[in-house]
Structures are given as C-alpha cells and as structure tokens.
C-alpha cells in the first residue's frame, strides 16, 4: 500500500532555498566528477591533435 504520496507541487513547496547538510561526502563526490571532466577534456584534446602525431 502506498501511504505517503506527494504531488510535484507539494514536493516543490517543501524545497528549501538554502543548501542543507548531507551525511555523505558531497565535496568529494563533486571533486571526483570535476576530475573526470578534466581527464575527458585532456583525452579529447589529444584526440583532436592525434593527426599530427600519426603522420
């Protein structure tokens, strides 16, 4: 049985305006993601310049 149902409107009303604390390491999580983006960017650059090296 589904007892606790919330419409999208109700959930939006409960949305806080400030950032609240969480009980996992969100700072580390965001850092990991930033790191992956940097690695992907570097790989893309290598790929874009690959033509020179292959010649």
């Amino acid at each position, binding site marked *: *049985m589904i*007892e*606790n149902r*919330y419409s999208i409107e109700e959930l939006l009303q*409960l949305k*806080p305006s400030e950032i*609240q604390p969480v009980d996992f390491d969100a700072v580390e999580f965001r850092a990991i993601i930033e790191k992956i983006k940097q690695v992907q960017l570097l790989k893309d650059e290598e790929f874009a310049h690959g033509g020179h090296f292959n010649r």
Partner: protein
Amino acid sequence: TILSDSTQFEYKHPLNTKWTLWYTKPAVDKSESWSDLLRPVTSFETVEEFWAIFKNIPTPIDLPLKSDYHVFRNDIRPEWEDEANSKGGKWSFQVRGKNNNVEELWMRSLMAVIGETIDEDEYQINGVVLSVRKGTYKFALWTKSEDREPLFEIGKKFKQVLKLNDENQLEFFPHSSANNKHPQPSITL
C-alpha cells in the same frame, strides 16, 4: 530547554520507501570494470533528505559524458540482472541536443517517482535513470514487470511528467531484450 529547541521536534516528511542514489562513473582507462564504475552514493527516506542531496550534487548538465544517475527503491541494484528487475523493463525517452530543460525534466521525473504519483497502488516502479551520452540525455523509468496493462498507465503518466506531446514517443524495452544488438521496443506510446 528542550521545548525551545525546535529542531528536536522538526517534522520530516517520510517517503514510502527508502531510495538509493547510484552513480555510474565513465571509464577513464580500460582496466575499470562495470562493478568498479557503478557505486551507491547515498540513501534517503524523507522529502527533506531528498532535497538536501539533490541540492548538493551536480545537475545533469554538469555531469561528464557516459555518466548515469540511478535512483532505485530499497536495495534494488540498478542492473537488469537484479532479481527485482529481471522480469521487467524500462520506459525510455531521449532528449537530443543541448540542455532543452533537461534539469527540470530530471527533477520532475525524480519527484514523480519518489512522490509515488506514477505508481497506482502497487510498487511497479523500481527506479529512474538519467544517462548522459554524446548529444543526448536518456531518461528511463524501470518497472518490475512487462505486463501491458499497468505499463500503459505508467507510460501515460511518465509522458506527462516529461511534458511530451503526441509527436514525442516513449518506448518500452523489456530487459529480456537487453542483450540484443538492436533491441526493438515492445510498446510505443
């Protein structure tokens, strides 16, 4: 005094079940296997915890390519091999091109799933997935069965959540076809 400490009595809005956020990290080198890449991030059981988490993590457009967010009920793993998923499938939709209010659609999908406004009276929905791919964002609603009758109702509601019109088709893929090279949807809506 205890009475003046309002935080002690702060009411939290319970969700119907526990949910877990999982993240699939893109492979940066070939030695990484799928099990290295898919990890649970955190779990939540109240509306308040849900908001705290989703205000603290990157939004879809800030995720690297080949990332997935998965939000699954209880301890269901976001894999079709999980017992809870094995007889089910997914309603799937792709948003092509840049942004196209992907963030809003992802938040609406999450709210509809954890608020249980897509499920009628049985737990048909196991979870929801967002996949970031080149030029496209894929939304998928994972169901526990491939019974057509509840699926039509769920699909119709999911279309409303994603604000789709008649030209935008939602497709259902049973997980049993996940190994096919070119899986065909068993239902389109």
